[in-house]
Each structure stands twice: as structure tokens, then as C-alpha cells.
């Protein structure tokens, strides 16, 4: 969305032009949520106020918002980077899961390491796991034409079953009294600390987003990824090695998701346990679409979703509203972001050149 037409020199206007769709989608989704709340007999203002308090009412709550935003930033970046290259990485969930699993393994099994070695090692393990696992659909896409949507969906199940196997089998927490499938707790040396209320993992996530923004907008690799996403044929004619680029984009995307899983294991959960990473990769799709694949905006949309997730239980507790309402709001938002046409039609917005994004190429376009 950076390619704005030169005639419009009022930058504020431009920011509005690129932000208006997500912004209006959020407003509209909140309105839909309010109507549903009203119909079900709750007071929407009270509910939203409690939601806000639950997210920002205390330092402890705010820390939870940051904790919940962190994996969303990584997953959102993973999906956004895929979109840039014209790839729809639905496998972020599986890549994140395996990254979380392997970081959990490195976290509990290696003993006696100092934190400044153990933590980076855990993150690196998550990164490599996610990268390798995403490499599979990347290679399949580039060299056999198997569509990544199908292969990543299927590989998500592979990831779920692999992590279940290791949590119940060879790596199971055998401590007395434990009956559930999970890995042992990670060593204290592998725990990612907090600075005040700010988890270090969140800082890493923000820095990663800035790095990805730089890579996409300021490097040859980023330019090539963009070109392949916009027009693979032209890119090929221009001499780019498109197949290699597709694999590379998937690998980097998977690496991002994998680090996200590792941060989750080492910074929040404290061990790998099935069921604790549910849906994070899929939320990454919402985040990326809401941010319109802009890495900086990914931070904002993650914070927004994280705040809703963090405040949900307070809303349920004090306003007596079932927290499924959050899912409804998130779903509605996604609907409006993807169905730009609807928003345009409702608000009679003019179409503007240069703000269009290609989410992914359709079936069989390549």
C-alpha cells in the first residue's frame, strides 16, 4: 500500500486511504457485536467498557495483552510475507505448533546452559523447525505445482499429530501425579523474562516486524518477493528465479511462525502442552488481512486482537457476556476486511489506485 499516486501529496489523506478499510471494518464489526449483545439482553456499552478495562485496566492485564499479541505478530508476519509472494500460508498454525514443540524439547532437555545461550538456542530451534516444515509445501508448490493451500492444510494435521505423539510418547512429562499429555516444564534458563510488564518476546516480535518491513521494502529479496506475488510470469522474464523465490518465501514465512511458537513456549506457557497454541496461526490470517500485509500494521492489528482476547474474560466476569462474542466480532471484522466491496458500497468510498493488494493468486493461475 506504499505505492501512492504522486498527485496526492497530502500524506494524512493517504494514511486515511490505506487505513480506512480496516478501520471501518473494525467499527462495523464492533457495531454488529453491539447489536448481538443488545438482542441477547446485555448492555453493549457496559460489555465494551469491561472489555477495555480487562485489557488495559491494570498493568497485569496489559501484560496479558502483550503476551497475547506476541504470537499474533509472528503468525501475522508469517501470513503477510506469504501473501506478498502470492502464497496463502494456511500452515502457519502447524509451523507454529512444531516450533513450540521443538523449543519445548530444547527447553526441558538441555540442562546447565546459561540463559544467554539457552534462550537464543530455543528460539533458533523454533525458527529452523518452522522453516523446514514450511519448506515442504514451498518445494511442492515450486516444483510440482501442488497448491500450498491444500498442502499446508494437510500438513497442519501432520503437525498436530506429531506434537500429540511426542507429548504422549517419548517426551511425555513423567513426573508423579501427571496424567495429561504434555512435555516437562522448561528449565529456568530457557524462560524468556519480562522487563517490567513488557515480555521480552514482545520486544523481539516488534523488532522482527521492523526487520521484515525493511526486508520487504528495502532489499532485493523483498522486491523480488513482491514481483513474484504481483506477476510471476513477468518476474520470470525479468530473470528472477521464481521457483527458488517461492520456496524462500515459504521458508521465511515458516521461520516466523516457528519463532512465534518458540516464544509462546518459552515466554508464556513454560512448557509444550497440546491445546495451549490453538488457533494462533489462524488468527495470523486475520492479523495479516487487517494489516493489509504491512509489517508495521501487523503490530497494531495484533495489539488490537490481543486486547480483545486479553479483555474477554473480564468482560465475561463483570458484564456477564459469553466470550464467544469476541469470536463473532473477529469473524465479522475478517468478513468486512476481505469483502472490501461491501464496505465500499456501504460507505460509498471511491476506489483508489494503488491501494489494491493481491491477497493470493487464484487456482491454477500459475
Amino acid at each position, binding site marked *: 500500500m*506504499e505505492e*501512492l499516486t504522486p498527485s496526492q501529496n497530502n*500524506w494524512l489523506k*493517504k*494514511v486515511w486511504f*490505506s487505513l480506512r478499510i480496516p478501520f471501518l471494518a473494525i467499527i462495523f464489526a464492533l457495531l454488529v457485536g453491539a447489536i448481538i449483545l443488545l438482542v441477547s439482553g446485555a448492555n453493549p456499552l457496559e460489555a465494551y467498557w469491561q472489555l477495555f*478495562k480487562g485489557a*488495559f*485496566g*491494570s*498493568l*497485569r492485564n*496489559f501484560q*496479558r*495483552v502483550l*503476551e*497475547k499479541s506476541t504470537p499474533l505478530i509472528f503468525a501475522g508476519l508469517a501470513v503477510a510475507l506469504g501473501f506478498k509472494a502470492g502464497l496463502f500460508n494456511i500452515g502457519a498454525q502447524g509451523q507454529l505448533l512444531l516450533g513450540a514443540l521443538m523449543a519445548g524439547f530444547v527447553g526441558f532437555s538441555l540442562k546447565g546452559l546459561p540463559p544467554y545461550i539457552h534462550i537464543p538456542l530455543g528460539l533458533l530451534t523454533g525458527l529452523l523447525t518452522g522453516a523446514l516444515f514450511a519448506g515442504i509445501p514451498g518445494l511442492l508448490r515450486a516444483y510440482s505445482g501442488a497448491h500450498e493451500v491444500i498442502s499446508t492444510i494437510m500438513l497442519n494435521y501432520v503437525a498436530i499429530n506429531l506434537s500429540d505423539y511426542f507429548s504422549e510418547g517419548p517426551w511425555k512429562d513423567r*513426573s*508423579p*501425579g501427571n*496424567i*495429561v499429555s504434555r512435555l516437562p516444564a522448561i528449565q529456568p534458563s530457557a524462560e524468556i523474562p519480562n522487563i517490567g510488564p513488557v515480555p521480552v518476546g514482545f520486544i523481539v516480535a*516488534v523488532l522482527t516486524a521492523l526487520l521484515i*518491513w525493511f526486508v520487504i*521494502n528495502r532489499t532485493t529479496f523483498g522486491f523480488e518477493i513482491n514481483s513474484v506475488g504481483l506477476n510471476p510470469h513477468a518476474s520470470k522474464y525479468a530473470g528472477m528465479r521464481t521457483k527458488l523465490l517461492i520456496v524462500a518465501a515459504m521458508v521465511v514465512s515458516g521461520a516466523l511462525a516457528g519463532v512465534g511458537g518458540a516464544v509462546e513456549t518459552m515466554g*508464556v*506457557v513454560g512448557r509444550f*502442552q497440546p*491445546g*495451549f497454541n*490453538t488457533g494462533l496461526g489462524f488468527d495470523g490470517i486475520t492479523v495479516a488481512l487487517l494489516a493489509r500485509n*504491512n509489517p*508495521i*500494521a501487523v*503490530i*497494531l492489528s495484533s*495489539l488490537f486482537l490481543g486486547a480483545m*482476547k486479553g479483555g*474477554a*474474560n*473480564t468482560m*465475561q*466476569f*463483570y458484564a456477564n457476556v*459469553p*466470550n*464467544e462474542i*469476541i469470536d463473532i466480532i473477529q469473524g465479522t471484522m475478517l468478513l468486512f476486511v476481505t469483502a472490501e466491496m461491501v464496505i465500499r458500497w456501504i460507505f460509498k468510498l471511491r476506489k483508489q489506485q494503488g491501494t489494491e493488494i493481491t491477497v493470493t493468486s487464484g487456482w491454477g493461475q500459475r
Partner: protein
Amino acid sequence: MKKRLYSILAILLVAGLLLGACTPKEPVAEPVVEQPVEQPVEKPVEEPAKTFKVGLVTDVGVVDDKNFNQATWEGVVAAQEELGFEAKYIETKDAKDYDANIQLFVDEGFDVIVTVGFALGEATINAAKANPGVAFIGVDQFQGEEVPGVAGLIFDEALSGVLAGVLAANLTESKTIAAVLGTDLVPPVVNYNRGYVGGAKWVDPEIDVISTYHPGGMDVAFTDPEWGASTAKQAIEQGADIVFAAAGNTGNGALIETAQHEGLFCIGVDTDQWLTVPEAHKCLISSATKDITLSVVELIKLAYEGKFPAGNYVGGSSLAPFHDFESMVTDEIREKLKEALEAYNAGKIELPDK
């Protein structure tokens, strides 16, 4: 240049968010946090109803799940009707919110916090250590070591099994009874069978028990009613006239199959299956149940009276009502069941290993 402006704006927005969050809100916005009531021990009768509060945190899922969450909440409500206190539940949506959800109740000064399911065990123990004076009831949470303020509610499936076995042994005419079981990978299922066989043999060592475990893994053992039905049928063909089904939905298949045969009895498991499997009314004489609801009421009462225990609390095991078969269960059999309970508690009923 424009790109840079855009990103600067984005960064400013993030910073604004961070700052906005860090500045304290107006005092009105803060929820009024009551000091947790230390112990309701010393002042029992003088209006304890106003200060006593019981909260429940579900496992990931809903409160009306026809399972542990629901049975536990029903216990809270039953105790509330009897004692008249404030009760509230919160449904957990994300497993990472266990601690935060417990904390909401702690912040509001709840006296008793009930957490449902083994998965909440760690969060419950941590919260208890941080908040002495609050009573935690952990349903299905085996306590490896005793933590003050935490009562882990667990169940003795072998005892339920013994009662079912004694009932079966007293009703059988063919001296052959059967058990259709979920996988032997799950200890509670094995314990049900150990009790069933032990109880039957305690009544009459000559009785033949045909126990069959589902051969599949965890993923199918409890969701295979066809296997349950065919296994029950096989046992019936071998002369069994009573079928005990301890296998979830697989067991329901066995119950329904047994109901197709005239004059046979079947016994359900965990909850009163008269209410959940109406198709088996023709044979369902009773169910070997875990009294989650009743045990929760007991524990809340103990907390109310200031006698809250710590460590493992073994909840009641019993047979569900006999419903249409009340008249079939003679006083003699009822007497025998009482006797069996005493004998079991005295360790006088021998249980097989499997």
C-alpha cells in the same frame, strides 16, 4: 519519504497505545477489590450468607457440557440453595487463561474457588500458594503432595465397580455376567472392571465374568457403539444375562443392544444413564456413578464450616437410582450392597489386577 512517514505514524500509534495503557485510569474505573475474607471459621451463624462467595472456573469448554463442568456447577448451585451464598462461574476459552480466570475470583474476594479438570491442577496449586485463606476445590485433580487450601476431588472407580458387581451377582440366573469396557490404557476403566469382577466374586466365587476391553486405541475406544453392541451380543450368546458397560459411547451401544433381549439387565457408568440413554430403559437397572455433584456440595459445606480439608478428597461412589426396577431390587440385595461397601472399606474385597 511517504513510506517513512507512514511507518513513523504507525510507530507513534504503537507508542500512544503503550503510553495510554501505562497511565493510570480514573479511580472510578478500577474495580473495587475487596480484601479476601481470611477464614470464615470464627463467625459461623451471624450473616455468613452475605460474605461467603463461591466461584467456578471451567476447563476449556462450556458450563453446560453434560459432563464434569456441568456436574460440578450443579453441585455449586445445590450448595448455594442450601446455604444461600453468592455463586458465579467463568467459562475458560483459552487454556492460557486458567491463571487469569482464577485471579478474577481471587480479586473479588471469593472464599471458595472450584476448578474443573486435571488440566487446571497446576494453576490451582499456584493460586492456592499465593492466596492462603482461599479454599480451592480441584475436581479430578490428584494431589501428588498436600498443599494447604487445595482439596483434590478424586473418585474411586473400583468402589463403583464393586457395587455394580455385587448387584449383578445377586441378579444373575445364569451365573455368567459380562463387562464391555473402553481401553485398558485408561486407569479408571481398569478400576471399574477390577471392582466389578471383585464384587461379583465376593458374592459368589463361582460366577463367570466375561470382561472385554476395546482393542483399539484412545481415539476409538470410547466412540465405537457398534463394537460395544457386537461385544455385548457375543457375551449374551455365551450365556451372560447382565452387561456392565464402562466405555462411554461404546458402552451405550452395549446398553442398547442388551435392551433388545428379553429379561436381561444392563448397568451404565459415570452418571445416571437412565437420563442419558433412554433407549436402554428396558434393561437399565442402575449405573455405577461418581457423585461429582454431591461431593462438591460436601466440600463447599466443609469450607463453609471452616473445616476445609487439604490433599486428596475421595468423592462418593454409588449406584444410580433403580427407577423402573425398584421392586426387582429386594431388601436382601440392598442389605448386601451396604455390606459390600463396608467390606470394601475394610479392604476385605479382593480385586483382580486387571
